[in-house]
C-alpha cells in the first residue's frame, strides 16, 4: 500500500509508504486520481514512511500539490516542507496550472493549398534534378580534357563493385529468363509444329530486350541503392562538406567515378547476360524439344540480324547513366536523419527502375522508326 487517506473534519491526511518510483507509478497514479479533494480545507502529507523517492514519485506529489492548490486546498507537509526531490520538481516545472507542452498543430486539409504546395515542391525538385544533371555533365566534359579528373583507381573499384561482383546474380537471372521464354514459346509453337522458331524467340528476345533490361533492373537494385546509401551516409557524417571544404568537388570524386564505373560495367554485364541467355535456350531446347546443339546454334546464327545484338548493348550505357544519376542525386539530397537516408535510398531505386523502363520504351519506338 503506497498511501493511506484519513479524513478528520476539514483535514485530509495522507500517509505515504513504500517505494515511490518509476516502477510503482502506474499503481500509485490511479489511487491519487481517485482521491477526492473536495471539501477538504487542508491536505496533510506525511512522506516520512517513503523508502525510495525518485523523480517520477516526486512528480506525482508535485502534481497532487498543484491539484490541491487549484482546488483551493492548503497543502501542509509533515516537517514543514516537501522532500527535496519534490522541491526540485517544483523548481523545474514551476507552478503553472497547465503543463507547458507545445500546442499540437492541427492539420486541416485545404485542397488548394495542398495542390499549390505539391506543384511548387515538384517544380523545385525538377529544377534541382536538372541542375544536378547539368553539373554532372559539365564535370564530365571538363574531365575529357583533364585525364587526372578521371580517378582511374576509383573507377576501377566501382567497375569491380558494380560489375564483377554482379556477374553471378546477373548470369543466373539471364539463364532463368531464357528458360521462361523458351518454355512459354515452345508450348505455343509446338501446336503448329513450328518449334524451330523457339530459337528465334529466345535469341531475339534475350539479345534485344530481356538481357539488357533485366541486367539494368538488377543493377539498379544493387548499385543504385548502394550509391544512394553510401553518398547519403557520407552526407550525414559531414564527409561531403569536408570534401567541399578541402576544395575537392564531391561531384568529381563521388559521383563521376560511380557513373563511369557503371557505364563501363553495365554493357559488359549485358554481354554476359546475352551469352548465358543463349546458352540457357540451348539447354532447354535440347531437353524440351530434343534439338541438337548444332541445329540450335545454326538457327541462332540465322535469326540474328545485323543489329540484333547492338540494339541491346547500345542501351546499356544509357541505362547505366540513369541508374547512377538517380542513386547519386538522391544520396546527395540526404540531410538530417537516418530516416531520410532510408527514404531516399528507396526513392533512388524506384526512380532508377522507372527511368530504365521509360528509356527502354523510348528506345523501342526509336528503333522501330529507324527500321532496325
Amino acid at each position, binding site marked *: 500500500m503506497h498511501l493511506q487517506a484519513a479524513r478528520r473534519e476539514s483535514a485530509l491526511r495522507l500517509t505515504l509508504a513504500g517505494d515511490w*518510483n*518509476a*516502477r510503482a*507509478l*502506474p499503481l500509485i*497514479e490511479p489511487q491519487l486520481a481517485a482521491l477526492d479533494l473536495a471539501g477538504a480545507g487542508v491536505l496533510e502529507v506525511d512522506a516520512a514512511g*517513503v*523508502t*525510495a*523517492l*525518485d*523523480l*517520477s514519485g516526486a*512528480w*506525482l506529489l508535485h*502534481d497532487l500539490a498543484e491539484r490541491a492548490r487549484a482546488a483551493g486546498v492548503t497543502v501542509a507537509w509533515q516537517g514543514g516542507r516537501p*522532500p*527535496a*526531490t519534490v522541491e*526540485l*520538481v517544483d523548481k*523545474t*516545472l514551476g507552478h503553472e496550472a497547465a*503543463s*507547458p*507542452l*507545445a500546442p499540437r498543430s492541427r492539420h486541416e486539409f485545404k485542397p488548394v493549398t495542398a495542390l499549390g504546395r505539391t506543384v511548387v515542391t515538384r517544380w523545385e525538385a525538377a529544377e534541382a534534378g536538372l541542375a544536378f544533371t547539368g553539373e554532372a555533365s559539365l564535370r564530365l566534359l571538363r574531365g575529357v580534357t583533364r585525364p587526372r579528373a578521371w580517378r582511374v583507381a576509383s573507377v576501377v573499384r566501382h567497375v569491380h563493385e558494380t560489375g564483377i561482383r554482379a556477374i553471378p546474380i546477373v548470369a543466373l537471372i539471364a539463364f532463368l529468363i531464357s528458360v521462361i521464354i523458351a518454355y512459354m514459346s515452345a508450348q505455343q509453337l509446338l501446336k503448329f509444329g513450328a518449334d524451330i522458331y523457339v530459337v528465334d524467340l529466345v535469341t531475339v528476345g534475350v539479345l534485344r530486350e530481356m538481357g539488357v533490361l533485366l541486367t539494368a533492373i538488377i543493377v539498379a537494385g544493387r548499385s543504385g541503392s548502394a550509391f544512394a546509401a553510401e553518398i547519403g551516409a557520407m552526407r550525414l557524417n559531414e564527409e561531403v562538406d569536408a570534401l567541399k571544404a578541402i576544395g575537392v568537388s564531391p561531384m568529381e570524386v563521388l559521383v563521376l567515378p560511380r557513373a563511369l564505373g557503371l557505364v563501363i560495367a553495365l554493357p559488359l554485364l549485358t554481354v554476359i547476360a546475352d551469352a548465358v541467355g543463349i546458352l540457357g535456350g540451348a539447354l532447354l531446347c535440347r531437353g524440351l524439344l530434343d534439338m541438337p546443339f548444332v541445329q540450335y546454334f545454326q538457327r541462332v546464327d540465322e535469326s540474328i540480324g545485323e543489329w540484333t545484338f547492338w540494339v541491346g548493348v547500345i542501351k546499356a550505357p544509357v541505362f547505366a547513366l540513369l541508374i547512377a544519376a538517380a542513386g547519386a542525386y538522391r544520396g546527395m539530397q540526404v*540531410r*538530417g*536523419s*537516418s*530516416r531520410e537516408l532510408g527514404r531516399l535510398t528507396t526513392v533512388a531505386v524506384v526512380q532508377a527502375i522507372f527511368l530504365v523502363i521509360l528509356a527502354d520504351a523510348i528506345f523501342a519506338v526509336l528503333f522501330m522508326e529507324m527500321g532496325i
Partner: protein
Amino acid sequence: MSPPAAAAVPAIEARGIVNRFGAQTVHDGLDMTVVQGEVFGIVGGSGTGKSVLLRTILGLHRPQAGEVRIFGTDLTRLADAELRSVKASYGVTFQAGALFSSLTVLQNVQLPMLEHLSLPPRALEELAMLKVRLVGLSPEAAAKYPAQLSGGMVKRAALARALALDPRLLFLDEPTSGLDPIGAAAFDELVMGLQRELALTIVMITHDLDSIFRTCNRVGVIVDKRMVAGTLQEIVQHPHPWIQSYFHGDRARRFGVADGA
C-alpha cells in the same frame, strides 16, 4: 533516500577484467571500484581502452575474463533477458549524443520509458517534459529534432534521455567534449547539481582537466592495461610518468598541482 545498508554495496565493482582483440591486449587484470554517491572520472591516453572499459561495464561487451558487478549483480554471468533489467538501472550518454535522429527530443526521452515502464499517457508526457526541463532545455527545444539542435543542446538532450528511467547510476562519455569552456562549465554545474539533488553515482570518461577538477571525487587512470585509482590528491602525486605528464603538464600548472600543492 537510499537506506544506509545499501550504501555498503559498491555501485560498480570490476575485478580482473581482461579484454583482448586478436593479439592486442587492451586490459590485463583491471580492477575498478566506484562507491555509491561519488563522481568517478576515468582518464587515459588514446587507445588505452576507456571506451572498451565503459562498454564492458555497461554489459555491451563481454570481457575474456573477470567480473563486473553493478549494485552487486554480476553482469558477466547474466543472460540477455536479465541484463535488460540491469540496463534499466543506469543511464548513459554517448560521446556524440547518439540521439535517435528520427525522433524529437521529447520522444527520445520517452523511448526508454515506453520500453521499460507502463506509464499512463499523461505521466509519460509530463515526466519526459520534466526531464527535458531539468537539464535546462526549453519546452520549444523538446519538440525539435536532433539535427536542429546545437552541440550543447545535444549534450543536454542526451543527459535528459539518460535520466529517463530515474537511474541511480549515470555514465557520461566525454560529456564536455566539443563544448566551449563556458558551456562546459555550465554543463558540469548542471551535472553536479543533479548529482547532489538526486543522490546519483556518476562515472565519467573525460579528457577535460577543468572538468575533472570541478567535478570528480576520485579518478581512475588507465596505465599499463590496469587502473590506478585514488582521490585527486593521491593521483596527482602518483609517480607513473604518464600520470605525471598528464597532471603536471603546462595545462595543469594553472591548477597549482605542479608545485605539489
